[in-house]
């Protein structure tokens, strides 16, 4: 990279092989990149931006986006994992400043012992702060706390044309709103100020309640959202319209706990053969999961990591789905169209391709923090599907019809295949975002859904 003009580099790459294979979490699509920059210091980022060709770069964190929103087919990535320093911490207010590559896991390890926790956390701790902001992630407390972006008070953004840009509610407020949920396209995050939240300790008072229909889920959800900080439901997606599942709800416990030693748990060493996760195995898993949890229903005090991050306990669980990878489908259905959720479940059950991790959650009513934020009032549902080629894509298209008719939306962080028209339905105002895109940035996802450069 150093001393080499971007244009020259491009020419050279065009004839050479695309060597840098980088996977997203779904391991689909499989995409090759020309080059992956790995800056270790913020002072190296401007150099990368200025020498790059237009539309050639995309910041990349821990690659936990499921589809292609964190990939940049045949172009370049800026791997931000080494930009992982915590720059400031105010012990009285709980405000931290950290670089974009710091992981949420790291924040928990450093600050939970000091009595501070993430204001919003997604279902995995292995995402970077930059990625959490770029996808404006949500968690089990969306109905109370809104999205991650709400708690980011200020950021500094490396932009290729105007240097380091400080964005907060007074200064460049529109750039901040564009960057929240902006899929990394507005620049490379140098650092962010995040307001942490006081907690007594690492424990959660958790409760699980089985439910046997969509309506009882809704009742549970409405009743619980007023009383509990965290709510989410697991769904047996083989049950069709008579959705059954387990409703989880909880609050931070007042118990000041002793430390929890994080153990890394088992790790899948390689991709399992694709046939292993067949419909019978998944169906059996769903039935067993339901029965175990409904037998165990009730209140208990559990460690935060088993409550928030059950899947993190199996490292590389994405390899379960075999070499072809998998797709996740996460949509939101507006509150007034709840029947559409039933229709979705019906279509999935009929296809026989259900996932073993169906998640259901009612979003709150707070206004979106970013221009392209996904959460909006309604029911969100997330499902995994092993990639079985055309069959899987067809099912998802048929789900798209339901979502589109209901006036819902799909989540870019989980997507590898939505059509431009589906994106248009989901984010009708995306064109207002375009002026904020850094001219050097682009992504596979963005080109696919907007036809952009």
């Amino acid at each position: 990279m150093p001393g080499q003009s971007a244009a020259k580099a491009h020419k050279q790459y065009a004839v050479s092989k695309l060597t840098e294979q980088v996977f997203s979490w779904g391991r689909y699509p499989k995409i090759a990149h020309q080059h992956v920059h790995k800056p270790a210091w913020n002072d190296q980022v401007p150099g990368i931006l200025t020498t790059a060709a237009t539309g050639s770069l995309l910041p990349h964190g821990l690659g936990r986006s499921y589809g292609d929103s964190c990939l940049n087919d045949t172009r370049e990535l800026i791997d931000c994992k080494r930009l992982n320093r915590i720059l400031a911490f105010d012990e009285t207010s709980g405000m931290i400043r950290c670089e974009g590559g710091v992981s949420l896991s790291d924040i928990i390890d450093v600050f939970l012992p000091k009595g501070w926790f993430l204001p919003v956390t997604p279902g995995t701790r292995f995402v970077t702060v930059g990625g959490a902001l770029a996808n404006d992630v949500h968690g089990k407390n969306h109905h109370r706390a809104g999205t991650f972006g709400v708690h980011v008070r200020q950021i500094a953004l490396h932009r290729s044309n105007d240097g380091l840009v400080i964005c907060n509610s007074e200064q460049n407020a529109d750039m901040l709103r564009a960057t929240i949920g902006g899929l990394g396209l507005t620049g490379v995050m140098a650092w962010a100020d995040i307001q942490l939240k006081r907690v007594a300790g690492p424990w959660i008072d958790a409760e699980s309640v089985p439910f046997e229909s969509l309506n009882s889920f809704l009742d549970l959800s409405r009743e619980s959202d007023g009383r509990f900080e965290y709510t989410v439901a697991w769904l047996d997606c083989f049950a069709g319209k008579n959705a059954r599942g387990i409703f989880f709800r909880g609050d931070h416990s007042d118990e000041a706990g002793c430390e929890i030693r994080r153990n890394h748990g088992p790790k899948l060493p390689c991709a399992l053969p694709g046939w292993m996760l067949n419909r019978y195995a998944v169906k059996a898993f769903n039935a067993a999961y339901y029965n175990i949890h409904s037998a165990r229903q009730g209140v208990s005090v559990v460690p935060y990591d088993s409550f928030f991050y059950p899947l993190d306990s199996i490292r590389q669980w994405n390899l379960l789905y075999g070499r072809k990878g998998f797709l996740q489908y996460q949509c939101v259905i507006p509150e007034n169209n709840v029947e559409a959720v039933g229709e979705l479940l019906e279509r999935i059950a009929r296809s026989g391709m259900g996932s073993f991790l169906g998640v259901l959650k009612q979003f709150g009513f707070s206004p979106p923090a970013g221009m392209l934020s996904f959460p909006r009032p309604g029911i969100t549902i997330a499902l995994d599907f092993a990639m079985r080629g055309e069959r899987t894509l067809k099912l998802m298209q048929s789900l798209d019809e339901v979502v589109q008719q209901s006036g819902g939306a799909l989540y870019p962080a989980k997507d590898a295949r939505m059509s431009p028209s589906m994106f248009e339905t989901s984010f009708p105002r995306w064109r207002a975002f375009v002026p904020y895109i850094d001219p050097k940035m682009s992504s596979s996802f963005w080109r696919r859904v907007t036809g952009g450069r």
Partner: protein
Amino acid sequence: MATTTTVTSPRSSASNASDLSGSSLKKIVVLGATSGIALEVQRQLAERGCELLLIARSFQRLAELQADLHIRGAQKVLAYAADLASVEHHASIFGFVRETFPDFDTVLLAYGSMQDQKESEASIDVLLEEIQVNFVSASAILTLFAADLEQRHTGCIAAITSVAGDRGRRSNYVYGSTKGALSLFLQGLRSRLHPAGVRVITIKPGPTRTAMTDHMPNAPRFADPEQVAHDIVRALERRSPDVLYTPKIWRYIMTAVDHIPEGIFKRLSF
């Protein structure tokens, strides 16, 4: 040249760092604090609540590191910005250490340079620069620290060399010879300081995934710096070994490599 100092408040009792009071691992000077392996070592030392004095070229980068390591649990983080590669700066560097961190007990030398082998064959300047950074300056600065520790009859000198220094290879012999020279220097130093009770550890990492090796084609198979740092910190805490291969498998690999007859070895292109 600039200096900064931070003295931290006592860590909260809730901190999960293990207390090392009574252990010898407490006050560490890191030469080359912004190198890839040093970054990981420092982080692990900070979590243990150590005191650190960081030396590297960039004032800005040192300031970022200072904040980070302090928040992660280091009791105290001092920093001094200077170019270790030029021997004329060594007196002032060592002066700062003596003045602000007089009771340091461990020195970790972590800086180094790996130029493209072909370039150092084509350019004498590149060749000499590599030798200057990796061997001349390294042996010079360690000599200053050695005298101090020898006089105090305590402490530990650890330096990162490389498995590449165990045998000269076609593809990497300039870098390898500078690291090999440093390993020999450390071996002699160990013997010299043994009567004074000062430990000398030669750290020989295998290829490690850091900024220094990003350009190398087979980088995905390299060791993680976290793992290498973990081994280094453990070696600093313990009484042994004198020579640390990390990851451990490299001890066996290099034993095998050492036994290849020269007549065959010279034909190998790796």
